[in-house]
């Protein structure tokens, strides 16, 4: 979960430069969060001891705008050094939650603690949190170097220290050549790296990122994801990352919190969320998913038997409150549907509706006798003609049945036949 203790030259370089300015840095960070710092000595973190699991804590936090519940009853702990992603569709409350942590919004109710101390009354400029914005938010009238020097100069770091620290931060994002340019003379990816250097140069223990790669094209985004992850591992800094891009969340995060309608519906590791989604919404939001509607016929422990509209039957894992006779939604991943192997607990006959070539794999559109179309991930070499009959199947463990119609918080779930 946490990658502490990974010693690297860059990390040492940044730490070393911070050491020379400990006086100023200490009053900014240590002064505000002194109570917690004494109980958990700073030296402990540096040596890679188990991280503080409650570095950031949201306790019953709510945010309302008039009648609108932006965030409801949020309880969340973020560990020191963790990379946590808030993932959800727009308007799901993830950015509001981030802004409350940054200090730009005040919770209507509840408490947020940072390093054991409530930040309720702490304005953004006293929280010592770094923040990276989607639109970079660089100061256009300052050079790249001046942008990165800004947080140091407002902290009254001496001029002699600012220069080397700015240089090191720019080296970390490989932009030291551009230090005299104006931000508008850089590409989007370069600008965001400057913003990153600026948010890291004063060594905040927590860095917030609000869709930082949203404005970049796909290739650059994937490259920056790797870079961000490397920087996270090098510096051991805690990162809270907001995105609506599920692949980005899966790629980088230690843990992902899925937001829906102002609440976290599930939080867990990327593979945990992918393989064991707790709700139909999570199943459809993370990765690709085949969703099928059905009625429960029998419940047997943690498994159940479900009848599909045309009388087809399948066994599935019963997730949540599943009772005989109740409508459910089934979720099966495309790669978990096998082409008629013996290992399948459930077998169906289907006809090929189409085949989409993706390079490293193919997507097969398979029509069940009931008329529903399933997406199946198959080998790139498979050659099936449209109209051909095929044998499909999946294991019980790979098919999950969720209560249909209503999500846990009372909101109608997404019930498309194929997501």
């Amino acid at each position, binding site marked *: 979960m946490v990658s502490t203790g990974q010693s690297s030259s860059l990390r040492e370089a940044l730490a070393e430069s911070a050491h020379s300015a400990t006086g100023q840095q200490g009053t900014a960070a240590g002064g505000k969060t002194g109570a917690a710092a004494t109980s958990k000595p700073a030296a402990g973190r540096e040596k890679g001891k188990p991280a503080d699991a409650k570095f950031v804590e949201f306790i019953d936090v709510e945010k309302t705008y008039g009648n609108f519940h932006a965030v409801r009853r949020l309880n969340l702990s973020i560990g020191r050094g963790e990379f946590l992603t808030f993932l959800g569709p727009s308007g799901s409350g993830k950015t509001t939650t981030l802004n409350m942590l940054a200090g*730009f919004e005040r919770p209507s109710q509840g408490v947020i603690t940072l390093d054991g101390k409530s930040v309720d009354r702490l*304005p*953004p400029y006293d929280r010592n949190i770094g923040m990276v*914005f989607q639109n970079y*938010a660089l100061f256009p009238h300052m050079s790249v170097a001046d942008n990165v020097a800004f*947080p140091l100069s*407002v*902290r009254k770091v001496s001029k002699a220290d600012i220069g080397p620290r700015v240089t090191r931060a720019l080296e970390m994002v490989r932009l030291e050549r551009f230090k005299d340019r104006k931000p508008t003379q850089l590409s989007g990816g370069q600008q965001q790296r400057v913003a990153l250097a600026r948010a890291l140069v004063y060594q905040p223990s927590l860095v917030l990122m609000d869709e930082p790669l949203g404005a970049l094209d796909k290739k650059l985004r994937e490259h920056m994801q790797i870079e961000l992850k490397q920087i996270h591992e090098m510096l051991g800094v805690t990162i809270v990352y907001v995105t609506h891009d599920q692949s980005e969340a899966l790629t980088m995060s230690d843990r992902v919190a899925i937001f829906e309608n102002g609440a976290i519906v599930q939080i867990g590791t990327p593979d945990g969320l992918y393989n064991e989604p707790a709700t139909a919404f999570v199943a459809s939001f993370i990765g690709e998913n085949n969703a099928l509607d059905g009625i429960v016929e029998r419940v047997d422990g943690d498994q159940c038997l479900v009848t599909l509209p045309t009388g087809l039957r399948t066994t599935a894992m019963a997730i949540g409150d599943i009772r005989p006779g109740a409508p459910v939604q089934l979720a099966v991943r495309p790669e978990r549907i096998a082409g008629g192997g013996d290992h399948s607990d459930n077998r169906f006959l289907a006809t090929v509706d189409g085949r989409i070539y993706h390079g490293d794999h193919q997507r097969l559109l398979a029509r069940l006798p009931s008329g529903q179309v399933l997406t199946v991930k198959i080998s790139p070499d498979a050659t099936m003609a449209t109209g051909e009959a095929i044998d499909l199947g999946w294991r019980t463990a790979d098919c999950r049945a969720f209560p249909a119609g209503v999500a846990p918080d009372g909101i109608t779930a997404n019930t498309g036949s194929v997501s």
Partner: protein
Amino acid sequence: MSSIAISGIKTRTGAMDRSDSLRPLALAAPLLLLLAFSFGAPIVLLLSRAVYEPTIANTLPHTIAALGTDSAAGVPAEPVFHAFAEDMKAAQAAGAIYEFAKTLNTRLPGARSQVLRVARLAGQDAAVTKEAMIKAAPLLGEDQGWAAIRSGTNRLTSFFLLSAFDLRWTDQGTIGAVPAGQAVFTRVFGRTFLIATLVTLATLALAFPLAYVMTNVRPLIAGIVLVLVLLPFWTSILVRTAAWTVILQKYGLLNDLLLWLGVTSDRLELMYSRTGLIIAMTHIQLPFTLLPIYSVMRAVNTSQLRAAQSLGARPLTVFRRVYLPQVMPGVLAGCLLTFILCLGYYITPVLIGGASDQLISNFIANYVNVELNWEMAAALSFVLLASTLGLYVTMTRYLGLDLFKMG
């Protein structure tokens, strides 16, 4: 269609085509011609009158010839007076004598009636003597009278430009101040610049917070505020000024309100006062200062301000180091616009200002409309134009503000 496409390809592939760079110019040609004939030429012609004044030289051809042989300074000998009488007679006959008398009078106060008297004398008696002429026109017997005539024989003159600064050529041939009683223009220029500065500062004090509020409220409210600010902008300046006379006069709305509120116990003299003038000008100029500031403020991304805060900057630091540097071009542009427009105010000082609040434009208008002294009007206009251009160049050169980029 095809020719456009072909020429487009040419510029991309080949060398820079000359006709391509001339084409936009050709499209603008009608406008440029109109500007040249209706704007540029009149300005040049008018301003040239500040330094080119041929009336005296044209009226006195014989005198000039006679003066050419009489090298002595001061009052010349008899032959020059004869030549002068001849010129006067000719001018009288041609009807040019009043123009000459008026022109000489601007250089030699009191010369008008004396010139007319000499001209009448010369018309009656062809053999009028120097003595008789000096008797009719005592200025002709004085050194300064002939100094004015001698300098007037030169068609190019610095007299009016120097006068605009309350300066003149002394009898010793150096530049010196005019007598204290005649010094007007430095005071008027000073007053014009002072009132322009005060109005500019007042509009800035009102516009800056208003523009900030407008960028931070909902678009609908910002739109309503903008309309309210612009509404007076769309009405004639004369109407707005007249409205202010209704409000500011002794038994007007403002005095009624102040009395009713108990702020004052007496009715204030707001009309024909500098306070009233500044209030009215501030109101009229507000949109000019506001709009450039508003446009740059809207362009500042609010996430920058958040970013600055998250990076540890207190609100005042955010304002000083992040916000102000970015809105400064708009502030300077707005202030420059208002300041320059204030330098040329005419109607409002006439209707609301008192006798001691008249600005340079009022003097220019007076010279044009009442005194018919186009040379002085041109000289004052020239100084006003030059100081405006100087201000603009200073702003663009030293403060790095480019008004052309602002648009």
